[in-house]
């Protein structure tokens, strides 16, 4: 399958490592073939015309020029190909990305929180329940502000910078941010989505090759943007279990060792505003009492 992606490879696209990635590559590949055909077709015509109709060869122009309707056919075929790509591939593909999430019990569910300039990963631990997060509880050692009194949070795993997931299991990521907009981009997995403060954006993928994959921050987020690196390590299931156990032992203390320290890194702090956009105000993590704003 991957060998079909000739132009993409030729242009340097790294090999795909996720289940759906082939489809992304294919649409990109088709688009490139299509563009290539148009480009070389027109270029050939263009070069021919420039040479054939240069003044020294053709001193007198023909007022009427081309009389056939050939360009209409050409334009029609462009429309047709674009329509096929759009209706046949692009729209269904996106629908699959955003409407058909795998069932939670089969998947690894991770909350990912961006901040200037690193990523924090929050996993629910063995009980499958995320602990409550409260903005007031954010400290250096509790970067997400997990409520220590919430039983669901006791076994939660919080890691900074590096996430491990097992190969061949879907991963569902729910993205948010503490400060500005970031973008969680995994080029090898052919997946990316914005991390926007105040909202929770889900995305999913299924890694099919073990390895270490860089997470790029794909949205300008300040001076350390260029170094806002994360790592997703795709493990064989056994290694993943070992990692999980290791992390689970640390859980409760929630001391997150930081992976590759990002340049200009800030002390960690804070939780995303709202876990669930539809939440009731009672649960709304609140800003602490403030001195009034100017004029107040």
């Amino acid at each position: 399958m991957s060998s079909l992606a000739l132009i993409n490879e030729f242009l340097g696209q790294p090999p795909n490592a996720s289940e759906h990635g082939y489809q992304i590559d294919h649409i990109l590949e088709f688009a490139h073939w299509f563009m290539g055909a148009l480009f070389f077709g027109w270029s050939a015509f263009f070069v021919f015309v420039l040479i054939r109709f240069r003044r020294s060869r053709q001193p007198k122009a023909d007022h009427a020029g081309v009389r056939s309707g050939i360009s209409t056919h050409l334009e029609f075929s462009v429309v047709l190909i674009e329509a096929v790509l759009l209706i046949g591939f692009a729209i269904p593909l996106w629908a699959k990305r955003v409407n058909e999430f795998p069932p939670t019990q089969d998947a690894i569910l991770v909350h990912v929180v961006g901040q200037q300039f690193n990523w924090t990963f929050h996993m629910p631990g063995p009980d499958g329940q995320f602990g409550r997060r409260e903005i007031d509880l954010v400290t250096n050692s509790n970067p997400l502000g997990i409520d220590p009194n919430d039983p669901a949070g006791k076994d939660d795993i919080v890691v900074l910078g590096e996430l491990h997931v097992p190969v061949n299991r879907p991963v569902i990521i729910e993205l948010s941010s503490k400060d500005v907009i970031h973008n969680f981009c995994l080029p090898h997995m052919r997946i990316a989505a914005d991390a926007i403060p105040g909202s929770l954006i889900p995305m999913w993928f299924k890694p099919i090759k073990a390895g270490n994959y860089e997470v790029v921050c794909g949205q300008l987020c300040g001076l350390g943007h260029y170094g806002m690196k994360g790592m997703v390590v795709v493990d064989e299931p056994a290694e993943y279990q070992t990692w999980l156990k290791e992390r689970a032992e640390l859980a409760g203390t929630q001391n997150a060792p930081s992976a590759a320290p990002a340049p200009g890194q800030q002390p960690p702090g804070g939780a995303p505003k709202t876990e669930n956009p539809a939440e009731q105000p009672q649960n709304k993590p609140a800003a602490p009492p403030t001195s009034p704003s100017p004029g107040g």
Partner: protein
Amino acid sequence: MDASTSLPAAAGHHHPHTHAGEHEHHELGWWRKYIFSTDHKVIGIQYGLCGLVFLFFGFSLMMIMRWQLAYPGQALPVIGKWLPYFFGPNTMPDGKMTPEFYNSLGAMHGTIMIFLGVVPVAFAAFGNFVVPLQIGAPDMTFPKVNAASFWAFGVGGVIMLTSFFVPGGAAKGGWTSYVPLSDIADKGPGFHPFLNGQTLWLVGFIFLITSSLLGAVNFITTIIQLRAKGLTWMRLPFFVWAQFVTAFLLLLAFPPLEAAIVMQLMDRTAATSFFLPAGMIVNGAPLHISGGGSPILWQHLFWFLGHPEVYVLILPAFGIVAEILANNSRKPLWGYKSLVFSVLVIGFLSFIVWAHHMWLTGMGSTVSAFFQTTTLLISIPSVIILSAFFISLWGGSIRFTVPMLWATAFLPMFGIGGLTGIPLAFNSADLYLHDTYYIIAHFHYIVAPGTIFGLFAGIYYWFPKATGRTMNEFWGKVHFWPSLICMNVIFLPMFLQGMLGMHRRWYDGGQGWTLSGEHIWGLTGFQWNTPISWAAWIMGLAQIPFIINFFWSIKHGKKVNDNPWEATTLEWTAPSPPPHGNFVITPVAYRGPYEYSLPGREKDFTMQNEPVEPAERSRRAAEPALAH
């Protein structure tokens, strides 16, 4: 009333020689004639010169950035030591660029190139200078508004430049100024509510928007009201159509951004939270705000302008190229009607495609299906326009004058840029490409070797009309060939970098990333920065012949007659340079804009103001192909 004559003509003493021209009694003073003029030609030239200087300035910023990208962390030789004196001590200590300064340069490069460079030159300068001449009008409908528009642009430009020199430096949030980043930018200790880069960016923008709105109103009214007798809509040169649609884009797309800018200004100065949700934690401390705002709202309003804006950048170039292609292939434009129809469709559709810049903001399948469809639809008229241009050349007698060289180069360059827009239109493919160098390459192919080449073509083409002299042809070619080669060496490799996964706005040029260490075509992704940067600097050198040629030819260029290109449209019936009021004889149009190589005629061009003779009429009736 006419206050333009009733106001006292200012300051003769600035120009002692005005007395010499005693016989011309209502001669305006030098200031009124060249600086505070209301004459569309002077305003057009003012716009053009300012715009070119800004263009060069924006390019210079990028040349500094390209050093950092190719040699990250190394001191910039020679000028590096001096730049801190100019831009402030925290920009390039020891000649080494800081990340903040890199971000400032990037944001200001984008802003300056688009809003202070290309829009003023492509729309305002060419629109002002050429459109009234092409439609046979004595001036714009509202000359004073026209001058106001230029001065609003001037104020906006000065504010934007000033922002480099305030504490903290110029805006750092990208030309898109995404919130919350821009909303909270610079708000550290010592925050001055007005004198900071981002706020000045916003204030400057309000002036630029005002300028564009006034200009747009003026252009549209002029084209509607002041067309010469007989110059019906379907006899308008294609350039006029392109400007007409462009003016509508500016008129209707800018105001929502203005609204957004006012809101961001409120956020920054009046502590509102239009774009800030509750519960943000910045630098480890909670932000004291009311919350309740939405970061996505800014993006909607920004791109509601942002997308039409890109057509503002390209349509005037289409227009210029169309004129030059017809003139130099000595043939009518092929499919004039479908061209006109296509620009109108582009204009309409460009208002409903904006969210294709927001594919990854958590967009559901319905909305994204809608925007994918409209985005692909809008590529069709572009294909039609380009096809018509190509086909126009068939059967021509092509002369490769300097303007024609630029115009021919424009076609494939725009083609590459436009074609690489197609994968971006599919959000599943853009998923991979979003914010990579692929995007940078996509749009630079359109705006740099595309629009900028179009502008150069226009400058070489209409220079004789503005000055009565041509620019030197040899130096024009010396300008052209290196520029063409360098542009491609700069931007082609960026597609590779993008496909490798290298992202834009990377201060270190990708040095710190494993993925940019992959080899492609012999170099690693990161190493490709070096040839790109060298090409950019050589490209800078290649502009020197142009600058010299430009200024030298104003005084010393070869003198030519009023219609040196043997063109057909009305501007060539006016004297060069045209006097105040433009035409000696008020022109009347009797025919279409591109009557080149009419059969049975001695000359291979027939100007629009030449009446149709009875013999010709009967011949046209017999041969429907001529009827067009």
